C-alpha cells in the first residue's frame, strides 16, 4: 500500500517534530522583529524601554531635514555600492560562465574565499590600504605620481569601495548562476546571424541574466543600507547612514521608539525593493 504523505498521522507526527523549533523561532525571531516594528508608535521611557501613549510623533520627528538627508545619503551610498558591484561583477560573471567547467569551479571558489573572512578584518584591510601612510599612497609616492598623500580614507568613496569589497561575491554568484544556465547556442546564434558583440550582449546575455542581476542587486543593496560599521570605520563618522541612526538611538540616546522608527523605514525600503524585484523577474520570465 502506498502511504499518503499528507495523511493525518504523518501530519500530526510532523507537527510533533517541528513545533518545539517553531515555538523557539516564534519567541525569538517573529515576536522580536514584529514588536520592534510596532514599537515606533510608542513613547520612550525615561530610562530606556518604552511606555504606552500611542502616537505618531516619531514619524513627524523623522521628517526633520537632518534625518531625511541621512536616509537619502544611505540610499545613494547603498545604490552606488550595488551599481559599482554590478559594473565590475557582471563582466566577471560573464567571463567565468564562458570558461571550461574546471576553471569555472576554480574561479567561483576564488571569488567566494575572501567572503569567508571576518567582515571586520576585511573592512580593516581597507584602513591599511587607504591610510595616508598606507600602501596605495606609499606606492603612488614612490613612483613619483604624487608628493603629498591623497586623503582617501574617511570619505563617502571609501565607504562605497569598502562595501563593494565586502559584498561583491553576492553580486557575482547569482549573475553567474543565471548565465551558466543560458544556452550557449543562443549567443552563438546571435553572432552567426550577424549581431555585433555589444548587440548580442544587450539583446541576449543581459536579458537572460536579468533575474540574477536583480537578486545580486538586492543581495548587495540590503546589507549595505543597514550597515553602520563601514560608515563608521571607513567614513570616519562623517558619513552617517540609517544604521548609525538606529545604533545611536538604541545605545546612546536610549530612545528605542525613535530608533525603531528608522528600523521600520529600513524594513519598508527593503520590502518595496524585494516586491519590485519579484515583479520584474516575473515579467522577464514571461517575456523570455
Amino acid at each position: 500500500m502506498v502511504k499518503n504523505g499528507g495523511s493525518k498521522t504523518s501530519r500530526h507526527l510532523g507537527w510533533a517534530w517541528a513545533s518545539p523549533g517553531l515555538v523557539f523561532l516564534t519567541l525569538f525571531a517573529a515576536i522580536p522583529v514584529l514588536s520592534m516594528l510596532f514599537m515606533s508608535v510608542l513613547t520612550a521611557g525615561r530610562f530606556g524601554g518604552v511606555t504606552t501613549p500611542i502616537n505618531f510623533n516619531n514619524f513627524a520627528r523623522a521628517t526633520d531635514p537632518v534625518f531625511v538627508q541621512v536616509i537619502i545619503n544611505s540610499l545613494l551610498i547603498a545604490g552606488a555600492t550595488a551599481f559599482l558591484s554590478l559594473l565590475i561583477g557582471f563582466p566577471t560573471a560573464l567571463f567565468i560562465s564562458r570558461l571550461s567547467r574546471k576553471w569555472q569551479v576554480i574561479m567561483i571558489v576564488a571569488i567566494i574565499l575572501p567572503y569567508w573572512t571576518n567582515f571586520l578584518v576585511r573592512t580593516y584591510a581597507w584602513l591599511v590600504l587607504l591610510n595616508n601612510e598606507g600602501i596605495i599612497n606609499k606606492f603612488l609616492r614612490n613612483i613619483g605620481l604624487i608628493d603629498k598623500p591623497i586623503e582617501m580614507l574617511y570619505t563617502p568613496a571609501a565607504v562605497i569601495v569598502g562595501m563593494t569589497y565586502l559584498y561583491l561575491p553576492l553580486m557575482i554568484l547569482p549573475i553567474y548562476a543565471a548565465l551558466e544556465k543560458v544556452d550557449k547556442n543562443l549567443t552563438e546564434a546571435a553572432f552567426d546571424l550577424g549581431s555585433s558583440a555589444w548587440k548580442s550582449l544587450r539583446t541576449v546575455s543581459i536579458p537572460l541574466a536579468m533575474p540574477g542581476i536583480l537578486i545580486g542587486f538586492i543581495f548587495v543593496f540590503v546589507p549595505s543600507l543597514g550597515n553602520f560599521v563601514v560608515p563608521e570605520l571607513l567614513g570616519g563618522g562623517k558619513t552617517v547612514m540609517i544604521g548609525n541612526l538606529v545604533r545611536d538611538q538604541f545605545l546612546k540616546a536610549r530612545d528605542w521608539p525613535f530608533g525603531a522608527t528608522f528600523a521600520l523605514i529600513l524594513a519598508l525600503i527593503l520590502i518595496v525593493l524585494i516586491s519590485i524585484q519579484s515583479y520584474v523577474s516575473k515579467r522577464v520570465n514571461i517575456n523570455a
Partner: protein
Amino acid sequence: MHRRINLSAIVAVFVIIFLYLPITAVVGLSFNKSSNSLIWKGFGLDWYQTIWSNEPIMSSFQRTIFVAVVTTVLSLIIGTTISIGLNKMKAGGFLRTFSTAPAIVPDLVLAIGLLTTFSTISLSLSLTTVIISHTVFCTAFVVAVVLARIGLIDPAIEEASTDLGASAVKTLFKITIPQLMPSLIAGAVLSFTLSMDEFVIAFFTNGPETPTLPMVIYSMIRFGVTPEINVLGTLLLVISFVGVILAQRIGKVADSI
C-alpha cells in the same frame, strides 16, 4: 567576439586583484617586525608571540569558540527537527518561509528586536543571550540546507525500516540522519563560521563583561591600525579557509557514501 571576452577578462583579473590585495596586505603585515603596523621593518613573528599573552584577545577568543560550538549544536538539533517535521507534514510555503526568514532579515533589525525582547522579559545580556540570538539565524540556515535535501530521500526506506521492526529512534539514527549527513555537515560548518564571525547581533545582545572576539576587534579598529589585528585577521582567515576546504572534502566523501 574576441574583443568582448578580452574586456570581460580584464575586468575579471582586476576583480581578483581587488579581492585579494587587501587580504594579502593584512597577511603580509602580520609578519612585520615593526611596532608600527604600516611600516615594514623586516620579517618577524614577534606579533604572533605577543598575541598569546594578550589576555583580552585570548579570553574573547575562547568565548567566541564556546558560543560558536553551543550555537552549532543547538541550531543543528532545532533546524533538523523542524526540517523533518515540515517534510513529514508536507508543509506549504508559509512554514518554510517562516523557518528560513531569520537568515534574510537584516541583522540590525533582528539585533535590536532581540535586544528589546530580552529587556522586556528581563533577561540580562550575557553570553546566553548571544547564543540564543545566534541560534535563531543559524537555525534558519540549517533549515534551508537540510530542507533542500530531505525532500530527495525516498520515504519508502524509512517505512521499510519501521516495517522490519526498527524503533522510531533506531530509524532516525540508522536511516534518516546518515542520509542527511552531507547537509548536516554543511549546516554545521555554516553555523560555526557564521557565529564565529558575527558582530552586529553580538554587539547588541551581549553584556559588557563578556565581549566576543569580533567585538574586541571592533573596539581595537576604532582606535586605528594596530599590529595585533593583522595577526588576528590572518589567524581567522586561516581558520575560515581550513573550515571551508574541510567541509568541501567531508561533503564529497559523505556524498559518495
